[in-house]
């Protein structure tokens, strides 16, 4: 059977499974807390959800593309971003999960609002984050469209619409519960496919000796350690460190990523979640090897470097593996899109409607809860389908730039209020507001007029935001109540039991 036939058979089974999981999620979703957080899962499921959400179409297509283009130095891209995520977990996963659970926040914007007792901050974050995420969603859809075009030879819009409609449907139905169920399946497929292809390709090419002999014929740069010391764009010691640092801040506070940890049954299990997540991220990072394999086998001729992984598959694997890789890359995109959609719909339903509109007037009733869920489902349809329309009709040319701009921009904005706010008792609401403005503004200035790249601009924006938070908080009066501060920073358990 041909690759196209096998792929479509696989896709029909896969999509049917996702819809069934969406319906299962809907049956278990009874409140806004179920929809937004669903704190009921064991550590392995949560780790599969976090890693699937982190690993996107950009990881499965863009990262091998960089390794294909730059050779071995490109592997530092993966080491930079994924180990940055491991460090980010150490920085915030446990502390943010336990603090947010303790004060009852259902999302990161909600946490900012509750942490600083400010509906203004809650609404600013809950409005800005979805706007920025439209770019991130569009980039994921574009990746799937390109994938379908390259592998199956169908119209680019088929992939865009398929991804958008399926994910929007299962998230509108089942919220976070559907997100976790589907991510467990999607991340398992991704991990198995990456390991299989990485090991098979390594043996096929005759190990390092075979790979290096094949690529060194073209250029010795492909087997060097870095693309330069300080000057070249990304794979220099400075560039990789900035990429790492940018990820520490942006993953550590990124609303759609950190919220996945909150689905754990009890924050006591977060340590296990972190360990499993680090192992899975490490395994996913081997996908970069497919870029160097592709360079060794296909040569430098690929027009679209993002298609390096699919091109490798077409060159050395039978169609059935090709179909599995297609589904694995689709899974990588979908498991990111679903996390984004839960987050933006929670911004509308909980952070703005339930908390900033209803709760100001009265304690939310059962009727309000139902209405909030409806608002969330409608927001999910709008935010799921509008970027698909954008991606399908006017595919933006510089989407990778927009994607990085979005994620690092959110990280620069939230490094102060979320990350510093977790550790600094003295942090004040004014400090949070000023640090958001300074972090985002510095990032935008370095990124747009100075064109310093997302890694250096993002790292600088986040560090500036964090420092601003500290300085302004020390310089302003603490307006938060003693009671709230004690809930945010309870005495250590040992002291309490003494």
């Amino acid at each position, binding site marked *: 059977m041909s690759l196209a036939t096998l792929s479509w058979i696989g896709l029909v089974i896969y999509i049917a499974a996702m819809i069934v999981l969406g319906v299962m999620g809907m049956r278990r979703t009874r409140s806004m807390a179920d929809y937004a957080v669903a704190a009921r899962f064991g550590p392995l499921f949560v780790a599969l959800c976090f890693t699937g959400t982190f690993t996107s179409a950009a990881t499965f297509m863009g990262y091998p593309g960089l390794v294909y283009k730059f050779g071995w130095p490109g592997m530092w891209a993966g080491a930079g971003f994924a180990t940055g995520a491991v460090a980010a977990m150490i920085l915030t996963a446990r502390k943010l999960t336990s603090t947010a659970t303790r004060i009852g926040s259902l999302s990161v914007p909600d946490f900012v609002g509750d942490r600083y007792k400010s509906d203004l901050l809650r609404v600013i974050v809950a409005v800005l984050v979805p706007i920025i995420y439209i770019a991130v969603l569009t980039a994921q859809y574009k990746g799937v469209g390109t994938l379908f075009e390259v592998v199956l030879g169908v119209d680019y819009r088929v992939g865009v619409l398929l991804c958008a409609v399926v994910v929007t449907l299962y998230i509108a139905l089942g919220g976070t519960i559907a997100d976790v169920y589907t991510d467990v399946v999607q991340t398992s497929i991704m991990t198995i496919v990456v390991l299989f292809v990485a090991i098979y390709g390594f043996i096929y090419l005759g190990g390092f000796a075979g790979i290096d002999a094949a690529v060194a014929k073209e250029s010795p740069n492909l087997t060097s350690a870095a693309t330069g010391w300080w000057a070249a764009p990304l794979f220099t010691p400075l560039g990789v460190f900035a990429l790492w640092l940018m990820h520490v801040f942006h993953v550590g506070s990124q609303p759609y990523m950190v919220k996945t940890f909150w689905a754990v049954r009890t*924050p006591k299990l977060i340590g296990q979640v972190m360990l499993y997540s680090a192992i899975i991220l490490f395994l996913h990072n081997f996908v970069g090897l497919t870029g160097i394999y592709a360079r060794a086998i296909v040569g430098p001729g690929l027009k679209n470097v993002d298609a390096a992984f699919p091109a490798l598959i077409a060159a050395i694997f039978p169609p059935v593996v090709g179909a599995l890789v297609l589904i694995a890359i689709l899974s990588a995109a979908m498991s990111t899109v679903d996390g984004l959609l839960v987050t933006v719909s929670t911004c509308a339903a909980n952070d703005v409607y339930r908390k900033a509109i209803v709760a100001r007037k009265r304690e939310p009733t059962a009727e309000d809860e139902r209405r909030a869920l409806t608002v969330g489902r409608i927001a999910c349809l709008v935010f799921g389908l509008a970027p698909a329309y954008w991606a399908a009709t006017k595919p933006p040319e510089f989407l990778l730039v927009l994607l990085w701009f979005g994620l690092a921009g959110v990280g620069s904005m939230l490094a102060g209020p979320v990350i510093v706010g977790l550790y600094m008792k003295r942090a004040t609401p004014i400090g949070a507001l000023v640090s958001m403005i300074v972090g985002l503004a510095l990032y935008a200035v370095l990124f747009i007029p100075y064109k310093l790249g997302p890694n250096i601009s993002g790292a600088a924006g986040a560090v500036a935001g964090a420092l601003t938070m500290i300085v302004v908080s020390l310089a302003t009066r603490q307006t938060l109540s003693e009671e709230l501060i004690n809930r945010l920073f309870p005495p250590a358990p040992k002291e309490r039991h003494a």
Partner: protein
Amino acid sequence: MRMHVFYAWLIWWALHFVALAIYLTQTREEEAVP
């Protein structure tokens, strides 16, 4: 012969696993409810 880039890449990863192991063994699990 100099070390292959891939091994440097593995060492960089290993450092993060060491950091994670130290963090997980040295810090206490926080309780959710005060």
